[in-house]
């Protein structure tokens, strides 16, 4: 604890940031509710998993796809290490999320690094990684504090909805008729987040390749199609960036490189 309490660099939580984050998270939290209910139903139907352990796994793992896989594996008689290995593979994309977002919080206090790591789900990553572009107000002198507040504002409602959804599934059961196919809201939501994240030609290449590989690898074990698709998309986009850069260099100077 070297830094003094009244140091101007000490970031403070700001209600405006929390509120802006929560507002951005609502459309993502709504589609998560029926999926939480589905997992709750799966836990309730399992004879191997007791309800308390299953419900607790919602905030121990806090990743829908991985939790679903863990529940199904345990229910199907898999061992502890098989479950852990599967969750490791399914969630490996979070390593990339951490790498992509950590730079915005390198000066954040230790408590935030715990909270921030815990909340780093797909949706929170999507809503916070490009914060500078359009949401972050320029006139605050405590940008880190605003970022932290916004981050928590997006993470907390997601966790709340998730935990409540699983409880509903456990207690009330299958309330939503399967033929409504409300689970389609989830791919739709990620599609929207994808469109939101496109900003140049290379990002389109990343999305096309990532999606194509994931479709080809849809039946690969432990979500490998998703992981390999994501990595391949990032690599291809970086390659396209390099090609475009070298083209620019070979041409007489016309305008500055666009960001």
């Amino acid at each position, binding site marked *: 604890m070297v830094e003094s309490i009244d140091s101007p660099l000490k970031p403070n939580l700001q209600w405006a940031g929390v509120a802006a984050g929560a507002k951005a998270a609502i*459309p*993502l939290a709504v*589609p998560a509710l029926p999926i939480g209910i589905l997992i709750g139903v799966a836990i309730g139907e399992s004879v191997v*998993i007791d309800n308390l*352990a299953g419900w607790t796994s919602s905030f121990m793992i806090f*990743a829908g796809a*991985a939790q679903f896989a863990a529940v199904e594996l*345990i229910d199907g*008689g898999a*061992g*502890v290490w098989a*479950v*852990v290995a599967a969750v*490791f593979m399914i*969630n490996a*994309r*979070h*390593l*990339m*999320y*951490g*790498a*992509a*977002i*950590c730079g915005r919080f390198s000066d954040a206090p230790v408590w935030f*690094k715990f909270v*921030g*790591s*815990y909340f780093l789900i*797909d949706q929170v990553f999507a809503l916070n990684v*490009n914060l500078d572009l359009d949401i972050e107000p320029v006139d605050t002198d405590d940008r880190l504090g605003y970022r932290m507040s916004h981050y928590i504002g997006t993470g907390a409602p997601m966790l709340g909805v998730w935990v409540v959804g699983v409880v509903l599934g456990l207690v009330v059961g299958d309330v939503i008729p399967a033929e409504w*196919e409300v689970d*389609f*809201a*989830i*791919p*739709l939501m990620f*599609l*929207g*987040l*994808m469109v*939101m*994240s496109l900003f140049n030609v*290379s990002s*389109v290449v*990343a*999305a096309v390749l*990532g*999606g194509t590989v*994931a*479709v080809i690898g*849809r039946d690969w074990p432990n979500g490998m*199609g998703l*992981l390999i*698709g994501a990595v*391949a998309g*990032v*690599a291809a986009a*970086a390659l396209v*960036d390099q090609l475009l850069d070298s083209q620019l260099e070979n041409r007489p100077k016309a305008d500055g490189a666009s960001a």
Partner: protein
Amino acid sequence: MSGAAVWLAFALAGLVTFAQRSLFFWLSESASDRLLPPPVQRALRYVAPAAFAAISAPRVIAAGSSSSDTSFNLLSILAETVVDARFVAALVASLVMWRTGKLPVMLVVGMVVFWVLRALGM
């Protein structure tokens, strides 16, 4: 699996997930500069489009087919996809997202189109 083993499996799965999410948060500035030099930083801007496309595409494109099917080829995927309510709804929703930039609007339009097409027997 015994009751205790179930708890253990969930706890370890949670720890693994937390470790994956937190690893880069704890790097010192010098370590992070070494692990994530500027070219890597630039590449990481594409994590969001690549990952979100990889999450959504398999559940939108030829959502009913399996890559282990013998008929799994480009033509059959295309033929199956263009008449699939999921794909059509996703296409409309993407256009809405692109034009409006509003996720709630995109979700509502996408689900309504999807349900209407399903009701029409698509």
